[in-house]
């Protein structure tokens, strides 16, 4: 037990150091620095939100188009970035593998956490600004919003744990990752509520933790204006299966990584 807590303490230090390093290398120390991390999801979401509200009018299915799009796109960009950054992450960071206490899991964990923090900041900031101008509701149930977000983040992390080692051993997977994000969009609940769909389709979508996460987030945000469909046990089961597969794959592939 003593050894385990010791190892845990080392990992906490490593993760902290990697986060700081990542922020400095990616965003630099100039101008707004690490605040850039929320700039992209925010710009993306606001542009699409604007375009949609012009195309479809301010209201659709009883909820505002802008908050609906913003609340969908921010998690989507988080997912997209996390997947994209998982590709070849071991080799990209191989200089760090010279230090034995740094594990490949740390790389994935750090990247996904930073993306998640960026997305949360974008959500909070974007939401607050839009709320001020009357384009965003006050969340009806913050607990539900957070629960949905946690499920979403958990699933993204576990998928990344699978994608990262696979991209290392297979060129095909590496090239397919960007495509897979677009394939994931219909299964991610970004554009629609499950309630707007036919029953059979909805049943299939319940297997996607993204949909459960998204529905919970939207329910937390819009409250009674939407009818959410979610299946938390299913989402957790799928996430857990992915997580186990990912951990096994990471361990196997780490043994094969050649560090220049």
């Amino acid at each position, binding site marked *: 037990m003593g050894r385990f807590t010791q190892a845990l303490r080392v990992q906490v230090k490593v993760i902290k150091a990697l986060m700081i390093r990542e922020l400095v290398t990616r965003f630099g120390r100039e101008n707004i620095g690490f605040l850039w991390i929320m700039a992209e999801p925010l710009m993306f979401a606001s542009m699409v939100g604007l375009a949609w509200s012009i195309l479809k009018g301010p209201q659709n299915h009883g909820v505002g188009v802008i908050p609906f799009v913003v609340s969908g796109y921010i998690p989507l960009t988080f997912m997209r970035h996390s997947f994209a950054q998982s590709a070849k992450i071991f080799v990209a960071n191989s200089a*760090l593998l010279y230090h034995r206490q740094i594990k490949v899991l740390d790389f994935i964990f750090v990247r996904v956490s930073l993306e998640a923090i960026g997305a949360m900041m974008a959500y909070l900031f974007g939401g607050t600004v839009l709320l001020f101008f009357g384009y965003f509701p006050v969340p009806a149930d913050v607990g539900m919003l957070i629960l949905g977000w946690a499920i979403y983040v958990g699933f993204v992390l576990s998928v990344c744990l699978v994608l990262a080692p696979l991209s290392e051993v297979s060129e095909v997977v590496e090239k397919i990752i960007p495509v897979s994000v677009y394939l994931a969009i219909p299964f991610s609940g970004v554009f629609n509520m499950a309630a707007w769909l036919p029953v059979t389709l909805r049943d299939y979508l319940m297997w996607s933790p993204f949909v459960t996460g998204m529905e919970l987030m939207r329910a937390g945000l819009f409250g009674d204006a939407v009818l959410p469909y979610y299946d938390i046990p299913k989402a957790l089961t799928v996430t857990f299966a992915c997580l186990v597969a990912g951990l096994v794959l990471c361990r196997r592939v780490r043994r094969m990584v050649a560090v220049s």
Partner: protein
Amino acid sequence: MIYCRNVHKEYRSGRVSKSVLRGVDFEINPRDRIGVLGRNGAGKSTLIRLIGGVEMPTQGKIVRKMTCSWPLGFNGGFQGSLTGLDNARFIARIYDKPYREMRDFIEEFTELGGQLRMPVKTYSSGMRARLAFALSLAIEFECYLIDEVIMVGDQSFQKKCEAAFFRERDDRALLLASHNTSMVKKYCNRAIVLNEGVATMYEDVGKALKIYAEF
């Protein structure tokens, strides 16, 4: 002590595979100075990377019972886009050492001055080696893994390294991969000759050098 038990390493690229180490067995005792001899491609760097834990053996086991540096060589261990000092700060964090002391030490040992505030990718290999040595000395490992690199430094740096490793830290273990036979002769008490994936340990360095010369 560090034990290597039946260590095999195979690299694979597509369908081509190459077996670099085929059953390496030896141990590193405290205070051991082990020279690693072998021709280019014999597996010296691979062995050092495996002992350092940078790569993992395909088969076999490496047991570390003392703290062991990362392989000190021309590359590795640094983030090129970060400055020397940023790298030092990162390493101080992950090895849990106070950064201030570390900075003072590397400023003194590397003599790189203002260059420490430049990205590491702008460094020459000699400057990188200075930084790597300074950082690893500041951490104080029980065993140092040195891949070829003392030779890249200039005279004054070589003197500093000699003093640091062979006088001030003569209680530490050292694994030194080198083509420089006079250096191995001068400093090592044992030597490994790597040939065809097999490592042979010689307690008599002179004998090892003689066999190595015959390849």
